[in-house]
């Protein structure tokens, strides 16, 4: 096996000093030479382990083969058969838990950098401008409403439009893209990429309507009974921020990660006063949590002018849910990680501004239902950390608005997620399908995109078999 190349080709990154002062993208991507060199490392396994580990089963060896041959456009076409958002996923997928995590090369050496290769070919396609829009063969009369323009909604809309349906995307915010525009920062996922995807999908004939909050502007029932939509896909995500519910959490200077990131990303508060929306970032910032959201908040705070940013996490480095690459970037940028501490109370000054977070030390106990060891507080170990700003990033759950305002749409009591069939995405309400974070709880871009894609198949099936008397029974009972 003389051709084994143990080390992965590095991807260029902006130097730390430069990147902590700007919101420009940190990772610069492979050049064509680098991509081909990295692709050369791939053994093109006849029975690949990476493909089953990919949530949407991209034919990874096939696309890498095309890169080896220098046919980058062919490579991207292969990816797009299964994943319509390669430029996004190449940047934000947790590859170490998926394809790269199961790469055979990874057992002894560096795994193949599948994510970087995916990103490279997608960017290459965009640069050459050869994104061709296939004309839709046959138009179908039915109208489908897609609620939410996150990855699940975008992909579902795109698939349905290609099947010939008349599709409208309704989005409550003033920009399209869901978490991709309001949550994930520019330095990780440039907004232009999301915009490009939206433009592509509108070229397929999808109508995009912003400032339309389903449940208030129109209810789901009205969309179906009065506005003539034959089916609906709910891709409304998990946008409701959770707080711990501890004393002092409403003090000034304490943000939910959603508010902090929305001000920065959607409202461009980092460009205040050129943009009108302000943000307050003190010298010392504590971020509660250690997932992707926490990393994004911490790194944004640094770029918005904080001198010292701390991650406070109640478990240890091993249990962090953030993408490995982003945790590593955060550490490089000087973010401090404090493990096994959990806030119990906030203390404020006389004007109501937060000035200290009181934390308790934790230790790890037995594994909980997530398989991770449960953190247990160590009594009497409380101490205080001085802070000016706190960002709470302990998770999001779906907003209850649509379920509250719709007849017959069932919700899981505990997590507020919508009940939907795992295979067909059919909810408890006839004609309504749901996928992405609103069904799974906060998860990943690729899972949401995959859900949108598969749901489109069953929406198509439903619309073609609408007159079958037990069609909904069939879709909700499918295994």
């Amino acid at each position: 096996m003389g051709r084994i190349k143990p080390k992965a080709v590095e991807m260029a990154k902006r130097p730390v000093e430069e990147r902590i002062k700007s919101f420009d993208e940190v990772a610069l991507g492979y050049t064509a030479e680098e991509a081909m060199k990295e692709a050369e490392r791939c053994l093109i396994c006849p029975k690949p382990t990476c493909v089953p580990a990919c949530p949407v089963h991209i034919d990874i060896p096939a696309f890498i083969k095309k890169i080896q041959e220098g046919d980058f456009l062919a490579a991207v076409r292969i990816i797009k058969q299964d994943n319509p958002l390669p430029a996004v996923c190449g940047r934000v997928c947790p590859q170490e838990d998926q394809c790269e995590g199961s790469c055979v090369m990874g057992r002894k050496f560096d795994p193949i950098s599948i994510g970087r290769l995916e990103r490279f070919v997608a960017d290459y396609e965009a640069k050459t401008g050869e994104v061709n829009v296939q004309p839709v063969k046959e138009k179908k009369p039915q109208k489908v409403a897609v609620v939410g323009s996150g990855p699940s909604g975008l992909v579902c809309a795109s698939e349905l439009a290609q099947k010939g349906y008349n599709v409208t995307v309704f989005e409550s915010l003033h920009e399209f893209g869901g978490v991709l525009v309001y949550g994930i920062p520019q330095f990780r996922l440039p907004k232009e990429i999301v915009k490009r995807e939206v433009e592509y999908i509108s070229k397929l004939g999808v109508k995009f309507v912003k400032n339309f909050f389903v449940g208030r502007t129109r209810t789901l029932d009205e969309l179906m009974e009065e506005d003539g939509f034959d089916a609906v896909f709910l891709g409304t995500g998990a946008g409701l921020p959770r707080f711990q519910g501890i004393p002092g959490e409403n003090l000034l200077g304490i943000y939910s990660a959603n508010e902090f990131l929305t001000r920065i990303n959607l409202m461009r508060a980092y460009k205040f006063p050129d943009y009108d929306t302000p943000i307050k970032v003190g010298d010392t910032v504590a971020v509660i949590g250690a997932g992707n959201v926490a990393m994004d908040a911490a790194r944004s705070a640094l770029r918005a002018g904080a001198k010292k940013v701390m991650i406070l996490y109640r478990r240890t480095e091993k249990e962090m849910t953030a993408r490995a690459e982003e945790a590593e970037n955060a550490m490089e940028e000087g973010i401090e990680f404090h493990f096994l501490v959990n806030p119990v109370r906030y203390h404020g000054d006389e004007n109501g501004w937060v000035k200290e977070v009181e934390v308790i030390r934790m230790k790890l106990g037995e594994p909980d239902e997530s398989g991770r060891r449960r953190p247990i507080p160590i009594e009497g170990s409380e101490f205080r950390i001085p802070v000016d700003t706190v960002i709470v990033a302990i998770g999001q759950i779906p907003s209850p608005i649509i379920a509250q305002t719709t007849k017959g749409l069932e919700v899981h009591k505990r997590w507020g997620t919508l009940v939907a069939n795992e295979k067909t995405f059919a909810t408890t309400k006839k004609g309504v399908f749901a996928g992405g974070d609103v069904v799974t709880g906060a998860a990943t871009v690729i899972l949401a995109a995959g859900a949108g894609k598969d749901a489109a198949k069953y929406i198509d099936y439903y619309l073609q078999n609408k007159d079958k008397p037990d069609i909904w029974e069939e879709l909700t009972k499918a295994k």
Partner: protein
Amino acid sequence: MGYKILFKEEVGPGAYRMIIDAPHVAKNARPGQFIVLRVHEKGERIPLTISKADKENGQITIIFQVVGKSTKHLSLLNEGDELADFLGPLGMPSEIDNFGTVVLIGGGFGTAVLYPMVVAYKEAGNHVIVINGARNKDLLLLEKDLSNIADEYFVTTDDGSKGLKGFVTDMLKQLIENGIKIDRVFAVGPVIMMANVAKLTKEHGIKTIVSLNPIMVDGTGMCGACRVEVGGKTKFACVDGPDFDAHEVNFDLLMKRLRMYRKEEQESLEKFEKELAQNG
């Protein structure tokens, strides 16, 4: 999908009424709900109460007071101009019923929020008493509109230039002392005013609703900027409110949270005014 300004008029010093072309908002709007708008592409999202919804013509009326950069910018737009964004209706509709005698109290910009409530309570068959308060008579808003609808209409000014000299609470106290049986009070305006109304009506056991106006971002329940404490629990005013039981609200917290961006608001307004001066 332009959100065109169809009509504009000044209704007091620094206060304007605008009618916006927004059929999608008008269709489902109910009293007590609000919209969020952005004046321009770099603008912030600001909440304003729906003053009137004309379902037939698809039009929404807003009334606003100039207090900072965004409202100033909005006030400079004219008929025919378009807003960048206009989202709604948002929030829970007010609970409107025939309660009997209802006193509706508005102070400062709150009078703009009060107006649609006065209309709604009146239409529901209540005996409607309005107390309109301001620092002086020049700052009183919507006098004609309110006095035309109200069964009884009172004015208070801090300096006594019109009506009773004093605060809206002084007028309310008089009504209570005069033995008028009040079934419900609805108040909206500066936080300190709402807090004082709440204190007074609590003493007299009168059910009181306030419409809270915390700083908001999305207005759809996804950020928590608008959180308020009601009955010791955290609520998101944009989806759980804006109406709350006045006797349960932590007004002190609301007042503090409204001050969070004082410095930045000042900076933004000054920059805007400088630009205006430079451009003539």
